[in-house]
């Protein structure tokens, strides 16, 4: 499965890239699989990802697919554009 990943500040600084194309193998890939991949691929993101719940993950980063905040259980489709965005905190 081919995915486009866009990193927004501060994640562009942490990964050193603004955008990349990645390949994930296997069928029925979920956001949680992508999160694991992300942690392995970019060491500086390892501490930012969490798999225990959407609430805990979103304290550190937001993953948006087609302008929707993705849940860990959401399936991914080939060619999807994923945005790695800063967490939301504040009023």
């Amino acid at each position, binding site marked *: 499965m081919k995915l486009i990943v866009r990193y927004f*500040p501060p994640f562009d600084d942490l990964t050193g890239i603004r955008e990349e194309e990645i390949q994930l193998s296997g069928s029925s890939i979920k956001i949680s699989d992508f999160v694991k991949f992300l942690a392995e691929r970019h060491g500086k993101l390892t501490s930012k990802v969490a798999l225990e719940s959407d*609430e805990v993950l*979103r304290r550190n980063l937001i993953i948006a697919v087609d*302008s929707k905040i993705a849940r860990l259980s959401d399936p991914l489709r080939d060619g999807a554009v994923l945005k790695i*965005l800063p967490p939301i*905190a*504040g009023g």
Partner: protein
Amino acid sequence: MSGGFLGKILRVDLDERTTKVQELPDELARKYVGASGIGARILYDEVPPATEPFSPKNLLIYMTGPFTGTKIPLSGRHTITTKSPLTGIFGESDVGGRWGIELRKAGFDGIKFSGKASSPTYLWVHDGEVDFRDASHVWGLDTYETDEVLRKETDQKANVSSIGPAGERLARISAIMHDGRDGRAAARCGVGAVMGSKNLKAVVAKGNGPIPVADEDRVNQLIRELGSTVVQSTKRLHDFGTSGMTVTLNELGDLPIRNWKQGKWDQGAERISGQTMAKTMLTGQYYCGACIVGCGREVKVEGGKHAGVHGAGPEYETVAMTGSLCLVDDLEAIAKVHELCNRYGLDVISTGGVIAFAMEAYERGIINREMTEGVELTWGNADALVETVEKISKREGIGWILGEGVKRAAEKFGREAEGFAIHVKGLEMPAHDPRAYNSLSVGYATANRGACHLQGFSYVFERQVTMPELGYNDIQDRFGTSGKGELVAKTQNLMSLMDSLKICKFILFGGVKMTHMLDWLNAVTGWGMSVEEFIQAGERIYNLKRMYNVRCGVTSKDDVIPQRITSHRRGEGGAAENLPPFDRLLKEYYHYRGWSDDGIPTPEKLRELGL
């Protein structure tokens, strides 16, 4: 008196220059929990609905809560309650900093001001003593200057709550500022103008007394259990402040753009974000009393036309309301506007809202360059933004009517202006778009002080927070259309409690849940309050404020949101086509609340709540 309260409210009569200490009964404290609840009870009992907000008979009530001054994290807060000159109904403003802590150390849970001083006056409250002092020499000074002068003549370690020139000149969108250059604002509802109407320039507080806590060991233990989780979970808030979420909110269609007409603004959002601020002007973080997060920004602009800006930096509401809403992407100009609003004592939300409105009026030809005295109020014009803030604070030219707030300005401009004046009950809408979260439409329409995101905070449960105690084990669907009335009512009740305890709502981003707060309350007060009693107290507070408004004539006819929000699809961005099904959600809300179809709490509901 149990722990949590000193049991003393200072009553100040500015007409007679007299003070009296009034007892705060434990029963009243328990029924209304603290700051916001007790302030509302006092207003309900002592300020009749026909009272003109600028009349000496209106009260200005400062109240702390049982957590203020304790070790409970994020609790350095207090509330200011009054009848609002901006909306003509219940008004309150919640603020952080250190002033509330000093007031309690000085021996008082709160102060209520009545009357009007015959000349500019400030009050010096210190260790149980109270002095009326002449404020003629600081009348006209901005709040940063006032802070410096008054601390010099009282105590360098004192904390100052003061108005600036905007409040002195009765601008209805004026704030009461705290902690000088650290710029903590009690901004909403025009509380600064009420203070100005009383010729009260400032209240200075300092004390060394103890804050009563029933079980100090239990408090320490509970804090230890959660403290590190809160710090870790809010690290981004510390690093980038509230405006660190700007880019993400733009992606979701939440960021308000071009007076609520546009759906996204990708490059602009990044230019005004907390991440850009961190790279260009951030010098440090500010922590309110007992805070372990540090979301406050400290900035310094070194060069360019806004060189010299130094102190409290823009929050998310500033970058959105004076940035994206006006299409201004110059972060240094936004920092300048933030500083001007702090210094002059203006609500930055209302200020941004009314200037964006004026820009649209200018675009439509309803106002022109002659009326603006040469200011080109075009979208994205940062210089015009700065100039207009100056005019509002000095009440010069068009600044006079803009300082009255967007509702009155629209009535004055006439023609179709009311169609793009974005407010609820006269209070300018803050920087979250109900088209991005359906619950927010009902939240704005039914917030007791007018359009307010913090009195319900329901939308955070539609994007990142859960609350199992209220039945929300999962994050809610922001575009969902059922259960929103119930969500709003439940979260409004919870926020009433947090506003009364005095604990910052940002602690919810640190994983703190309702039962944690109840444990803390019981440890501080020794009350042994049950979950049911706690929840009902929140509902009681919310209904009491509603009843104040009902006495002022508020019904369902006033529980509306601007037509632009219910009818204008933006066609782009993360909420391109969504319009909240407002009428249906509002009916569901009334039904869940036990209110009539006219939006009035039923006698049965009031009896159930002991009102």
